[in-house]
C-alpha cells in the first residue's frame, strides 16, 4: 500500500479553503491548533524535500510549489497576530479576543487596566501561533527575518513564567488574580519549552526566564512505574505524555547548548531510560481483526455483530508469533487499541530519545507503516483515529507525522523530511529556527548578516 498523496493534498486543501463542519464547534477555542495542522500538513506535502523522493518516477525533480500560496501568507500571518493579547501571549481563537476598545481604560482603584482578560491567553494558543508564524515565512531571508515582527516577546516570556507553578509544572491560563488554571499536564511542559526556545527565553536573564530545573524535576517525577510517562507524578503512563516529556527535555538541551553534555536535561529528566525504551517499544501491537478480509465486507459486518469489539488487539500469545507481513499498530497505553496518533507519539518519542542513547532501538517500522496505510488512511484523504473512523485534522496530520518520522532520512515517498522535535516539516522548522535570529543578540545577528 502506498501513501495516497493526491488524496491527502485534497483533504488538507479542503480544510484550507472551505469552512469546517459544525462538529468542529467543540474545537472553536483552539482554532490556532486547527489552522496549524492544516498549514503544517500542506507544508509537509509540498516542501522541497517531498519532491526528491518522487524524482525517481521519471519526472524532472523540480522543487514543488508550496501548497500554502505565497499570496496568502501575509494575510494569514496577520490573522495569527490579531489573536495576540496586548500583554503578550496568544488567545486560542478569534472568539477569545476582546477588542482593544474593550481592553482599554484604566481602573483607578486597582491601578490596572479596566478589563484584565489575561485568562483568554492560552498556552496551546501561544505555542501554535508562534510555530504558525515561522511556518508562514517565505524562504527568502527578508521574510524569515521578519516572521516574528509584531510578537510581544518579553510580554509572552513574562506570562510563561507566571504560568509555571512552584512544583515546576505549567498550567494553561493565568487568571486575573494571578492564580493558574489547567491541569498538571505534560503537554504544557512541552509547549512551554518550545515557546521558550522560539523566543530565546534563555537569553533574557534569570528574572524573566522560567525555572528550568524545576521543570526538569517535574518531568522526572512523572515517569511511571512501568517506564512510561504520565501527565504528572504517580499518574498512568500514556504515549503522548512520553513524547511531550522527552521533546521538552530535548528542547531545553537545545537552548542550553552544552558542548560537554548536549543531552544534559534529557538524562536528568528521565530516571530510567531503559525502562522508557522498553515501554515505548511495547506500545506496538499486532493488529488483528477476527479473520476479516478487506474485500469481504459482508462477512466483516456479520462478525461485528457477533463480537462487540472485533478490532481489539488480543494480546494472546497466538498473535505474537505470527509469521509473514503483519500490521503493527500502536496503542497509547497497555491493553488499549491501536490508534493513528500513537504511531506518531511513540515513534516521535523514541526518535528524540535516541539522541541520548549510543544506539537507537528500532520499532518495526514496516508493519507500523502498513497499519497506517492500510487501516487508517482514508480513501478520500486524511487519516482517521482507527480503522473505519472518518478522518479528522488531528489524526490526519499526526498520521503523516508518524510516516515521516518512521521513514527517517529515507523519507516516505511524497512526504517531506520531518523535524521530530518540533513535529514540523524540516524546511518549515528550519524557517522557525532562522526566524528566531530576529531576537538574537546584536553581535550574533551581525555575524550572520555578514
Amino acid at each position, binding site marked *: 500500500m502506498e501513501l495516497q498523496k493526491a488524496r491527502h493534498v485534497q483533504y488538507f486543501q479542503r480544510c484550507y479553503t472551505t*469552512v*469546517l*463542519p*459544525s462538529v*468542529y464547534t467543540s*474545537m*472553536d*477555542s*483552539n*482554532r*490556532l491548533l*486547527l*489552522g496549524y495542522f*492544516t498549514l503544517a500538513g500542506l507544508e509537509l506535502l509540498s516542501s522541497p524535500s517531498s519532491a526528491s523522493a518522487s524524482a525517481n518516477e521519471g519526472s524532472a525533480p523540480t522543487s514543488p510549489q508550496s501548497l500554502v500560496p505565497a499570496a*496568502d501568507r501575509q*494575510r494569514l500571518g*496577520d*490573522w495569527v497576530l*490579531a489573536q495576540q493579547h496586548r500583554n503578550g501571549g496568544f488567545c486560542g481563537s*478569534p*472568539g477569545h479576543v476582546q477588542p482593544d476598545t474593550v481592553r482599554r481604560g484604566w481602573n483607578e482603584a486597582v491601578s490596572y487596566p479596566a*478589563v484584565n*482578560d489575561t*485568562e483568554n491567553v*492560552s498556552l496551546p494558543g501561544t505555542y501554535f501561533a508562534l510555530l504558525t508564524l515561522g511556518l508562514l515565512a517565505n524562504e527568502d531571508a527578508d521574510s524569515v527575518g521578519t516572521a516574528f515582527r509584531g510578537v510581544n516577546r518579553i510580554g509572552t516570556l513574562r506570562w510563561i513564567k507566571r504560568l509555571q507553578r512552584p512544583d515546576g509544572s505549567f498550567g*494553561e491560563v493565568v*487568571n486575573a488574580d494571578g492564580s493558574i488554571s489547567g*491541569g498538571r499536564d505534560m503537554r504544557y511542559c512541552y509547549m512551554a519549552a518550545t515557546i521558550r526556545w522560539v523566543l530565546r527565553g534563555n537569553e533574557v536573564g534569570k528574572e524573566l526566564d522560567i525555572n528550568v530545573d524545576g521543570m526538569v524535576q517535574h518531568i*522526572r*517525577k512523572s515517569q*511511571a*512505574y*512501568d*517506564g512510561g510517562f*504520565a501527565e504528572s*507524578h*504517580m*499518574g*498512568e503512563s500514556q504515549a503522548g505524555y512520553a513524547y511531550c516529556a522527552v521533546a521538552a527535555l530535548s528542547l531545553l538541551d537545545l537552548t542550553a547548548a552544552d558542548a560537554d553534555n548536549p543531552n544534559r536535561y534529557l538524562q536528568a529528566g528521565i*530516571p*530510567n531510560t531503559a*525502562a522508557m*525504551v522498553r515501554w515505548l*517499544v*511495547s506500545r*506496538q*501491537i*499486532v493488529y488483528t481483526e477476527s479473520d476479516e478480509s478487506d474485500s469481504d465486507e459482508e462477512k466483516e459486518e456479520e462478525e461485528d455483530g457477533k463480537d462487540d469489539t472485533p478490532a481489539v488487539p488480543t*494480546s494472546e*500469545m497466538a498473535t*505474537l*508469533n505470527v509469521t509473514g507481513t503483519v500490521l503493527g499498530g500502536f496503542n497509547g*497505553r*497497555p*491493553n*488499549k487499541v491501536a490508534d493513528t496518533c500513537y504511531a506518531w507519539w511513540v515513534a516521535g518519542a523514541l526518535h528524540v530519545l535516541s539522541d541520548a542513547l549510543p*544506539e*537507537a*532501538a528500532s520499532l*518495526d517500522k514496516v508493519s507500523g507503516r502498513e497499519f497506517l496505510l492500510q487501516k487508517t488512511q482514508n480513501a478520500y484523504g486524511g487519516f482517521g483515529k482507527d480503522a473505519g473512523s472518518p478522518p479528522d485534522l488531528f489524526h490526519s496530520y499526526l498520521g503523516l507525522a508518524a510516516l515521516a518520522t518512521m521513514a527517517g532520512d529515507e523519507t516516505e515517498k511524497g512526504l517531506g523530511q520531518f523535524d521530530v522535535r518540533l513535529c514540523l516539516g524540516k524546511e518549515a522548522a528550519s524557517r522557525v529556527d532562522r526566524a528566531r535570529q530576529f531576537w538574537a543578540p546584536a553581535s550574533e545577528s551581525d555575524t550572520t548578516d555578514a
Partner: protein
Amino acid sequence: MPPKNNKGGAKAKELSEAKQENDNSRPQTVFERAQAAYDLTRPPYDKEREELGGLHALSTVEKTAYANWFCTGSDELSCLSKKAQKELWKQVNETNRPLRRGQIDQPKPDQWGKDKLGRNIGDYTVPQYEQRIEKQAQLTGLKALGRSFASKRLYASKGLVDSSTGERYILTEEDIQAERERRKEMAALKKDLYGEKMGSYSTDPEWDDIVPIPQMEPEGALAAIAYPEDYAESMSYLRAVMAANEYSPRCLKLTEHIISMNPAHYTVWLYRFANIQHLDIPLLDEIEWLNGVALDFLKNYQIWHHRQLLVEHYYPTISGSPDEVKRFAKSERAFVMEMFAEDAKNYHVWSYRQFLTRKLGMWENEEHGELDSIEGMIDEDVRNNSAWSHRFFLVFSNPRYATPESHATEPDAGVPADVVDREVAYAQAKIQLAPQNQSPWNYLRGVLVKGGRELGSVKGFVEQYVQNLGEAEKEEVHSSHALEQLADIYEEAGDKEKADLCWKRLGEKWDRIRFGYWEWKRRSMKTAAASS
C-alpha cells in the same frame, strides 16, 4: 403624459393579454391591479396609444382627443389667451371623447421591491399581497408595543410616577414575559417577511442592556467553522458580560448554553466558577449539574478541572466532620463509577480520582478507602491498565507510610514489607488468570522496585511460564512477558548467556514484532560487557 417607461408598458400589455385568457379581465397580480386602477384614471385612447405603440396608430378623432387631453392637463393652458382657451374647450366638446384624469402615477412592475427569496412583489397575487401587508402591520403594532415597554422600563428604573393614575411605574414579570413573547413573534415575522435572523439573545428583553461584542475576523480566516445557529450570538454576549465582569443568574445560564455547544471553551468555565462564587450557588448543586454535562461530553477535560475546583472549595466546609467527608467520598466515587461504566479507561476521570483520593484521604486503610473498589474493577477487567495504575498510586502514595513525593520508579524504604508481600502476591494471582496480560507484569516489576527487591526474588514464579527454552520442539512459553522478565532476571544475576537466549527466542518466535528491540537488547549487553 406619455409613458416614462415603454418597456413597462409593453409588459403591461402582455400581462393584460394573459389575464384576459384566464379570467374576464380581473386583475390577478398586484401589478395588474395597480395597472387596472391606473387605467381607470385616464381616457381609453391614451391606453390605446400606449398599447399600439404611438400616436400614429390612432384615428384622427382620437389623435385630436389625445392632443386636447394632453393640452388641457398641462400648466401651459393658462398661458393661452382667453379666446384660445375657449376655442380649445369648444373643440374638446366637439370631439366628444372623455377627458378623465386622476392623480395616480403610472405603476412600475418593480416598484414594490423584492421579497426575501428575490421574488418580485409586484407579481404576488392580490390575496398574497394582502397577507403580507397584514404581517407588516402586525410587526408595526408589535414594535409600538415594544417601544411602550421600553419606556415603561425606563420610567420604572427611574422611579417615575404615572401622572394619569398617580402611581409609580412598575415593570412586572408579566410585562417582561409579554415582551419576550412579543419579540419571538417579531422575530418570526421579520424572518418571514425579510429573511432577517434574530438570535435568541437579541430577542430576549432580559439582555437588552448588553451590547454584544461580535467576533472580529477578516474574510478568509483559517479554520473557520460552520457554527450552529445560536453559537456566534451567544459568544458575542459572553464576551460582553465577561468584559463587564457581570455575575448574575442570566450569565450562569449563558455559560451553560455555551458549554453545551463548546465544552472545551477554556474561559467560560472559569467565568462560570466566578459566577458560582459571587451568586453563592451551593457547590453540591453545581456538582449535580456537572454530572449531566460530564456524561454528555465524555472526552472533555475542562469539566474535570471545574469539578476539582468545586471540591477544593467544598472540602473545607465539611473537613471538620469525618462523617460528611465519608458521605461525600462515597457519592463522588459513585459518580466516578458511573463515568467508568461509559469508559473504564477515561484518563481525565482517573486523574480526578487520584485528586479525590488525596483530597479526601481515601487510602486503602480508611473505611471509605479505595482498595475494595479498585479490586472490583480489576476483577471486572483484569486488563484495565488504568485500574492497575490507580492501585499502584493507592498503595505507594499512602501517606501513612510512603515517603512524600517518592518517585514511582524508585525504592521507598517507608513501605512496609508486608505491603510489598501482599502486592507481589496480588499481581501474581492476577497473572495466573491471564499470563499474557502485561498490566500485572508491569505492576509486579513496579512493586519489586518500590520494595527494593531484586527481580530474581520472583524467579520461581516467572519460570512456570517458560519451559525448556531453546530446546526446539520441547520449548514452551506461556507468556512473552514472563520470558522477557526471565531475561532481565538472568541479566541481573550476571547470567548473560541465558539472558541472551531469552531475547533471541523472543525475537525469533515469541514476540516477533519487537525483533529489532530484542536484537538491540542483545547488542547493548554485549557492548556493555566489552566496555567494562
